[in-house]
């Protein structure tokens, strides 16, 4: 009799599933527990994986390196021209600020964090800083090149979960570089995102840079978010939309920076 109920497979399955669902009441300490003792191992595995992946990427892409190099040279020239133009604007901006007696402090304060793993089922990362270091949900993350990575969605004691710009939970206001166009960035999952609600009066073009906007106050202004890959709008739609490629690539960044406070918040 004692073992007869064990033979009832469905009852056991139902009980076990019910048990796991009941763990939702303790999901934060449970996940924190696993992340806390898995962290060092995951960090080591992440570094090994990243190193090996970069090695193989270089090996497999060797035939295309020449053309890519050529394209990068062209990009560099284009960027140099832009920098020259921006330097002029920066100088003008500085003079205006001085004239208005506005202090030029750092735009934001940051905290360095390492990536330790990627979420199994969603566009999210786990980083090596958490509640103990003062992280809070909603804080943005950037790379050293001021490329926007995403924002903190959940904090545990020593680690945090970060949703990437391609995560379907992410949407924020953006602007297109060198134009007055503004729009809404929406994550679509699996590394993809779209730019939506852009006025039809301002033409978009593949290759345009997408920057964060001060509207909405979700992220600091002028962080690099991505680049327009393909225009998706049709004549019937009231707004333009486009497929965008987020700039952030996991394999390129060893460390991320959590913005703990920024001025235009």
């Amino acid at each position: 009799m004692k073992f007869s109920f064990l033979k009832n497979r469905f009852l056991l399955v139902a009980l076990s599933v019910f048990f796991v669902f009941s763990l939702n009441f303790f999901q934060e300490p449970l996940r924190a527990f696993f992340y806390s003792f898995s962290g060092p191992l995951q960090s080591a595995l992440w570094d090994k994986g990243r190193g090996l992946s970069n090695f193989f990427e270089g090996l497999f892409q060797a035939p295309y390196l020449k053309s890519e190099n050529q394209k990068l040279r062209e990009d560099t020239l284009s960027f140099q021209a832009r920098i020259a133009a921006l330097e002029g604007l920066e100088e003008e901006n500085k003079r205006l600020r001085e004239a208005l007696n506005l202090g030029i402090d750092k735009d934001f304060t940051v905290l360095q964090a390492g990536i330790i793993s990627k979420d199994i089922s969603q566009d999210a990362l786990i980083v090596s800083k958490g509640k103990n270091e003062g992280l809070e949900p909603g804080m943005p993350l950037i790379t050293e090149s001021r490329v926007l990575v995403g924002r903190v969605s959940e904090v545990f004691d020593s680690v945090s979960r970060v949703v990437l710009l391609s995560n379907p939970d992410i949407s924020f206001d953006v602007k297109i570089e060198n134009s007055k166009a503004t729009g809404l960035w929406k994550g679509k999952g699996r590394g993809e995102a779209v730019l939506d609600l852009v006025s039809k009066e301002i033409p978009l073009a593949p290759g345009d840079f997408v920057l964060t906007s001060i509207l909405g106050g979700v992220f600091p202004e002028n962080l690099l978010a991505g680049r327009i890959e393909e225009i998706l709008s049709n004549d019937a739609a009231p707004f333009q939309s486009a497929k965008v490629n987020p700039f952030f690539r996991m394999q390129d960044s060893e460390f991320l920076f959590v913005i703990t406070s920024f001025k235009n918040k």
Partner: protein
Amino acid sequence: MKSFLFIPLIFYSAALLQTSFLVHFQVLGIVLSPLVLLFLLINVLERKESFAGMISAWWAGFFMDVFSGSVMGFWVLVFVLGSLAIRFVKEQYVRLPSI
């Protein structure tokens, strides 16, 4: 019975491997999942009287839930139903040749 003790350890290692190492080796945006592969392997190859398939489904789902942002229990349910489906197909439609 002893092997049941190793199952959580194996699946835990597979989860770490998947989230921190194999994630760098995506092919067309797809990451190889040792959790799923192990689950399939155990469920397909287990004997009729064995319970290892169900245990492995539970642990695979548990670690998927822990290392993802989804609701706890979602992946356990998916894997357990998957295990039952595999068992059903094996019992109903698969005849292994006897030696």
